């Protein structure tokens, strides 16, 4: 069962992530031109210059979080001039259009909470640009008044070991000699409970099987990333919260 689950894990490697950054940029442009009614303009390159020049790009979340890393890749792939890429904690938000960049938004709550903490984010001029969102997160953030763009939108039926997740096949796993659907859920949950009793199926029980080359989100099933009782096949690098500095050994 574990091996079967592993074969259904979706891993986004560095090449795919770079490609997603390019797609994020192109979708952003398409949307900006569409919204301003300039998609049919005769001189598209000029329009594109105008859109970029009137936008400021920020990472979603703190500088040491994944948003900063993704913004770096995004800037490289899109070739956006560096002066347009700013730090939201250091500089006052200007009157132009804003674009926040991050890798994933799976519940939407973290992004919402972060944006709420910033002073005066003009929601009607703010675009949230992700590599992947769930439809749940997209709906939540859209209701909050933001525009959400992502090349990958994970439908609800793909979450929680749903019918379209690839993990549960419509032919029945028992026909493939693996397990019944109930057995697979139980298996994932039992191991998940060992790892994270609060969310044995991952954060908000999203039950994803998704990882990126720079990290594995905690919405993914803990059986993949937890190191509580075993060596994880897809390690996760959690944020260290609080004031305790992890012990390091130094060789003098």
């Amino acid at each position, binding site marked *: 069962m574990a091996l079967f689950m592993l074969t*259904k894990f*979706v891993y986004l490697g560095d*090449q*795919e992530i770079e*490609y*997603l950054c390019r*797609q994020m940029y*192109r979708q952003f442009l*398409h949307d900006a031109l*569409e919204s301003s009614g300039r*998609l049919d303009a005769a001189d*598209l390159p000029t329009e594109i210059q105008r859109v970029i020049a009137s936008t400021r790009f920020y990472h979603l979340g703190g500088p040491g979080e994944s948003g900063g890393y993704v913004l770096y890749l995004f800037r490289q792939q899109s070739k956006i001039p560096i002066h347009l890429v700013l730090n939201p904690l250091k500089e006052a938000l200007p009157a132009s259009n804003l674009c926040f960049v991050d890798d994933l938004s799976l519940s939407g709550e973290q992004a919402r909470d972060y944006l709420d903490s910033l002073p005066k984010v003009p929601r009607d001029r703010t675009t949230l640009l992700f590599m*992947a969102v769930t439809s749940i997160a997209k709906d939540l953030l859209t209701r909050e008044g933001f525009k959400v763009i992502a*090349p*990958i939108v*994970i*439908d609800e*039926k*793909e979450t929680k070991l749903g*019918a*379209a*997740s*690839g993990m549960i*096949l*419509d*032919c*029945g796993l028992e*026909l*493939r000699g693996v397990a019944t659907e109930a057995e697979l859920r139980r298996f994932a949950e039992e191991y998940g409970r060992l790892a994270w009793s609060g969310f044995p199926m991952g954060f908000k029980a999203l039950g994803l*099987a*998704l990882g990126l080359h720079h990290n594995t989100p905690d919405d993914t099933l803990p059986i993949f990333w937890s190191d509580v009782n075993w060596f994880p096949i897809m390690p996760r690098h959690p944020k260290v919260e609080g004031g305790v500095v992890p012990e390091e050994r130094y060789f003098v």
Partner: protein
Amino acid sequence: MPDHVFARIWDLETTGRSRLSKNYDLFIGGCGSDTRAYSALRSLVKKRTSLGEVLLLDFAQRSSAIVDASERAQYDSYESIGPRIKVQSCSPLESRDMRGIGSELLGLPSGAKVALDISVLTKPYIFAVMRAISEIPGLGFVHVLYTEPGRYLHTPSGTYPFSKGPYRVVDIPGFAGRLSGPKDVLLVLLLGFEGSASKAVFEELTPAKVVPVNGFPSYLLHYKDESIVQNDPLFEQVAAIEDLQFAPAANPFETFNVLGDLKKEADQLQLSLVISPIGPKPMALGAALFCLHHPEARVVYPMPASYEGKVSTDLGKSWLYEVEFPTASLPGKSSAG
């Protein structure tokens, strides 16, 4: 002749709705028992879009493969959609004579509006219909509609037999490329879920270089890996995975752009560009559009021995693509005359 185009793509759930015309002189679609077969047509009728003529392509071999009564009912349900639906019988295994479709199009006035639903057309017919449409004088653009499947159906062993081999590799009529170009080939495979089909193409053409293009992002998250896994028979034979490229499965314009880059590479290496659209239909559409602009590119397709009846279930996202044809004559249109 452009190597890159800007994407003119809209989500029909949101911004695309307002982009649709209030009337179309001609709507072309296909018959099928997939849930999505008539979804676009139904939506247009529901919106009270004025449709001058509706032409559905009825693929005989696909229809005869249906044994299930509910699938048959679904296949025939176009009869209840609206008036003036003309059904043209065609063979999915044979598209060498497209004059029948051409005659439907020739009667259209200049500046006519055409909608084409490619959701259940076979890929050779996507190319053939696009070619036929491109011959209409004064046609500015065509609205191409596509409904993603909710998910594809598969066997207990995890394969996706949309068709059954053995496969016979053929040129798609009208897209035979150049007889006089370089002999060595750069083969671009738009990956699908049928590995034996791509292997058949590879073995037939014995290319100097193979570039697989994977539909990513894919309709469902895990499909981007399925196409790699299902094409293992090919990747065992040739180390093409190192040259893997991406294009979003639902965005034909990005496929166009990728082909533009590969065309440049082929020219530099003095290779003929040959494309095989085994993957998602929007990617095939992008390839068709590219080849209309670059007739030196050749398109080959692995014709199966037979097609399956129903290959998908439920509905996924719906898309509108605004495909422009140049107002000037396309290359190769009339030089044989």
